[in-house]
């Protein structure tokens, strides 16, 4: 982000950025930067809070008043994070082994039932918001679990989406599945709590168990890309965990 700002500024465009890692902003020295002590993924701080969002924008745009730079300022309000982690992280001890997976057909059926039960509330959420973020994969919702289950069975299926190989598509399907659940609950229950949403989805739902099963298979996989996905925490949220996923070295990082 700071590097991009340099290129735009050098093209005769005035820039201001907001950022979450102050040490990086100090080191790279963009022309104008406002440090935000917020969780990552919340650049304007709070969803559905226009006044707070405008405070952040005004705080950033105030830096245009400086006649010389680099200018680095701190936004005066903080949105606390838990134990230094910038988003939800799975408990390190919550790891499945392939021997824990059980009958994949049963697990898929349980996820499908869960998806069906959430559908009316998901549709209400989409109607209320006028948008959904589900669909980056372009697969239909009822095909998410069956597609994921093929990988759990140790197969790499043919990608149903032209131009997107199976494993990158798998990542998008996983993210679509989680978005389906969290879009539904944040709307249905009127809650905005990233820790609660992460804990519910990953630790309490059948869909979470399906993905932890996928992780277990990936750790044991001889497919380098599948292994890379788990070693680099690109699927299950372990980036902010205290220590690498057991069975991996985190060498990918």
């Amino acid at each position, binding site marked *: 982000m700071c590097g991009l700002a340099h290129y735009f500024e050098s093209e005769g465009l005035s820039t201001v950025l907001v950022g979450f890692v102050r040490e990086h902003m100090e080191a790279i020295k963009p022309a104008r930067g406002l440090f935000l002590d917020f969780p990552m993924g919340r650049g304007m701080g709070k969803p559905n809070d226009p006044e707070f969002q405008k405070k952040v924008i005004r705080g950033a745009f105030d830096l245009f008043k400086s006649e010389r730079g680099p200018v680095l300022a701190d936004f005066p309000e903080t949105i606390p994070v838990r134990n230094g982690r910038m988003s939800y992280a799975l408990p390190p001890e919550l790891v499945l082994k392939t021997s824990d997976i059980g009958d994949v057909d049963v697990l898929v059926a349980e996820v499908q039932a869960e998806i069906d039960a959430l559908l009316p509330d998901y549709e209400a959420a989409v109607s209320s918001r006028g948008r959904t973020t589900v669909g980056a994969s372009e697969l239909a919702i009822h095909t998410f679990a069956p597609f994921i289950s093929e990988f759990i069975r140790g197969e790499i299926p043919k990608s149903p989406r032209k131009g997107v190989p199976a494993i990158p598509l798998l990542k998008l399907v996983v993210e679509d599945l989680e978005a389906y659940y969290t879009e539904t609950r944040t709307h249905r229950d009127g809650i905005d709590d990233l820790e609660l949403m992460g804990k519910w989805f990953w630790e309490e739902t059948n869909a979470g168990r399906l993905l932890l099963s996928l992780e277990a298979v990936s750790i044991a996989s001889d497919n380098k890309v599948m292994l890379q996905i788990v070693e680099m925490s690109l699927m299950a949220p372990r980036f902010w965990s205290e220590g*690498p996923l057991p069975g991996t070295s985190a060498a990918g990082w």
Partner: protein
Amino acid sequence: MTKISEMPAVGRSFISDLKLPSFEYLAWTPPVPAQSRRVSIVSTAAVSRRGEKPFSWLAKDHRSFHKNDRDLVMTHVAVEFDRSAWQQDLNVIIPLDRLEEMAESGEIGSVADEHYSFMGAADPVTMEKSARTVADQMKHEGVNTVFLIPI
């Protein structure tokens, strides 16, 4: 303040070891008066319009979207940031509605028609060519101010 040294082990190690870009000079463009600002957003959230090609994991390229586009999806490779916020409100990462309100009230001049997204996981040095292409498009549209927002 959340310092890198206080972050949990895996994330701390990764962020500490990142190779940061360095530049020989400070690029500095004097800003125009607030009421003359035409603002374009640059996001590193790897969002794009539904149906567009997903970003690759270390993409050097970019996507653009119109200020009225709200049907955006995210294909960012990383999952270490909260996605539940933008699911609830696009403005929490791309505040188009807020900028429109500020333009209507005269706090800024106008909101650009086109806005841009990059893959934040990629090395920004590899994005230079794409960034300069975006800069040309912005200037062609009369943009003079860029608001950069990470994910």
